[in-house]
């Protein structure tokens, strides 16, 4: 090798080391602030803006700095990686569905409700989402929500149909939307019900949950003592799934491609005017106001089925990792977030941001007043009266995947014997319950 090459080679090792060290120093930044907390939130960039306005008020009040990290996709994976690598933050704000998983991962600190200042002002229903299957509380609720039904008002009034209150109304409306050319363009390109039925992430189960509760069914039924048994073989479950099968396979009033549609595609179907009925979260009120437009869309309570009313509810929780460095600071932040001031800041979308608190968990805050929008009163009522949460088994995500795949199979193949298929699915459900050690004998 030529001399100059040998020289170059000899420089590489120390050079490499220096470069690495320098980048590491530059990257670590100002992490060692005096009193600060690290908060990870599952939110988009817009949501982060609102969180930052909350942080500003908090720092002004207490002097504790807040370092945010937000991620929208892959959030749980990041948490898992951080847990393995020992880099968990002081506080994690995530969807309430994650409780079971986080508890099972064994990374959370249990919460003493009495020790949370202002905790007694929070809705009991909201606290319920923070309960682990062992009865202890593992988080503090910061936001609540309940699904509502969005209907194309312009289509409905054009076809002169009433606001749907029951499953029969919904069926009739869906049929009319599909066959009645409500957008008046002379083409048969409109459909009734939007159904994100993809097996991905168990969306089919997630969406069907509202209809299950409306039929009086449960995915898994609690039998007491923290144990459950599968509820998919019950007559109520059969009623719900058969009805959806009718909508999907016989009446064909769902949007095309429903069986492969994750929520992004379902949103597009509703926004673009492909279908006119969509049961979704209140976080879409702002999006649908923009397109198709506030004058065209109405948000109403979901219909009642054979078992009454019921919708998927939930919210967001603040979780406290065991490995947190500044637990006191984290608690103070949460107390601020659940106070009327924090909740109001969270609900007001600050410049360019979106609301991170949909329905306040604090009973003292009136959502309709803060948002200046009567529809939120309806959402709050739905939350109070009809919201159900997913069963409190250790790992609901796994179960949702199992049930989602099963429902997707039944609906996409247009099963001829739904009862038998549901019985088979129930066996899988019970197997999963047994694997999670909560199966009732």
């Amino acid at each position, binding site marked *: 090798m030529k001399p100059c090459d040998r020289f170059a080679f000899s420089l590489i090792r120390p050079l490499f080391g220096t470069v690495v060290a320098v980048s590491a120093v530059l990257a670590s930044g100002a992490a060692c602030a005096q009193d600060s907390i690290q908060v990870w939130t599952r939110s988009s960039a817009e949501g982060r803006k609102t969180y930052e306005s909350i942080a500003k008020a908090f720092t002004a009040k207490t002097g504790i700095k807040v370092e945010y990290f937000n991620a929208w996709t892959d959030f749980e994976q990041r948490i*898992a990686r951080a847990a393995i690598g020992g880099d968990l933050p002081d506080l994690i704000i995530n969807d309430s569905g994650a409780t079971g998983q986080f508890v099972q991962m064994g990374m959370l600190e249990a919460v003493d409700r009495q020790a949370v200042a202002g905790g007694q002002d929070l809705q009991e229903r909201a606290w319920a989402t923070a309960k682990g299957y062992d009865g202890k509380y593992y988080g503090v609720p910061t936001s609540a929500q309940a699904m509502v039904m969005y209907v194309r008002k312009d289509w409905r009034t054009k076809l002169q149909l009433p606001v749907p209150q029951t499953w029969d109304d919904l069926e009739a409306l869906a049929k009319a939307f599909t066959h009645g050319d409500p957008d008046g363009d002379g083409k048969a*390109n409109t459909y009734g019900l939007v159904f994100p039925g993809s097996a991905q992430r168990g969306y089919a189960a997630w969406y069907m949950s509202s209809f299950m509760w409306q039929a009086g069914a449960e995915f898994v039924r609690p039998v007491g003592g923290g144990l459950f048994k599968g509820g998919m073989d019950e007559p109520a479950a059969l009623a719900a799934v058969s009805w959806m099968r009718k909508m999907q396979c016989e009446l064909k009033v769902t949007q095309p491609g429903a*069986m*492969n549609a994750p929520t992004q*595609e379902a949103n597009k179907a509703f926004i673009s005017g492909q279908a006119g009925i969509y049961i979704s979260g209140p976080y879409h009120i702002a999006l649908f106001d923009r397109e198709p437009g506030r004058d065209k869309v109405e948000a109403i309570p979901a219909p009642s089925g054979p078992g009454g009313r019921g919708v998927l509810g939930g919210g967001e929780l603040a979780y406290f990792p065991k490995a947190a460095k500044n637990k006191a600071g984290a608690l103070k932040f949460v107390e601020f977030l659940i106070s009327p001031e924090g909740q109001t800041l969270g609900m007001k979308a600050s410049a360019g941001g979106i609301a991170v608190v949909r329905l306040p968990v604090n009973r003292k805050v009136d959502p309709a007043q803060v948002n200046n929008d009567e529809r939120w009163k309806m959402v709050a009522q739905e939350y109070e009266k009809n919201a159900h949460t997913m069963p409190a088994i250790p790992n609901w995500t796994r179960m949702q*995947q199992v049930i989602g795949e099963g429902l997707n*199979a039944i609906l996409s*193949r247009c099963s001829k014997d739904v009862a038998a298929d549901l019985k088979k699915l129930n066996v899988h459900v019970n197997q999963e319950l047994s694997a999670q050690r909560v199966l009732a004998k």
Partner: protein
Amino acid sequence: MMRTLRQWLVPALFLAPALLVFTWFKFIPMALGLRMSFYKVNFGAPNEWIGLENFSRVLEDEALGAAAWNTFLYVSCTVSLSVVLALLLALSMQGVTRHIRIIRTALFLPAITSAAVLAEVWRILYAPTPDGIMNSIAALFGITAQGYLNDPDWALQWLMLMHLWKSVPYDMVIFVAGMATINQELYEAARVDGATAWQRLRFVTIPGLTHAITIVIVLGMIRGFRVFAEIQATTGGGPAGATEVIMTRIYKLGFVQFDYGYASAASVVLFVFTALCTMLYLQCRKRLEA
């Protein structure tokens, strides 16, 4: 002794940078991954040793077996078709077409799409509505509107088509590069001997492309067995498990359910299988060459 060491000196120097990078960022993580497969990975608590339990679960998992069959179908069809089509396309790019830059650039577009974009574009094409693109084309031939990715019986085949749309241009580029290295004098000699176009193809072009063909087949196999992103982005393994491949299954079990130990074990099995297939192929090729 010195002779042997001497033999290694130059190769070692040339291989050093690559091997260093591989050791730190591939071999060490692979070893850690292998180690994880013998444990139940916990998050707050230390991992529990469970020996071969993960592996026995892997071998007993029926759904994984079904996914393996789908993967096998996927790989065999896409690799074989891709080689043939890419070769044909590369041949057609010779001669007069070489002047038409637009065609060459246009053909390359699918090769540079990422899996996510691929999924988005084909989701549009495969729209099951009667006025969707594929259905419109099908209507020209008198075929009724299909469900495409929503149809449990054909979804896998449609995904293969989507894969080919990207892999054929990709492989074509490799073949074109391969053709560039064929000694032109061989063609002259063949022409002088009065060989027809077909004979030139059989006796000059294809033998000259054996290296390129090996690359395309081996890489097609390796990538095919661990195909994930494009399937996850379109069907997620549905509908009704029709497009479930090994990696979508591993992802669901290991990552959605946070059973990293199991995911690692299943991946190790996949790895061993892929390695065996590759070695088998390379050995066969060596035999044929000799």
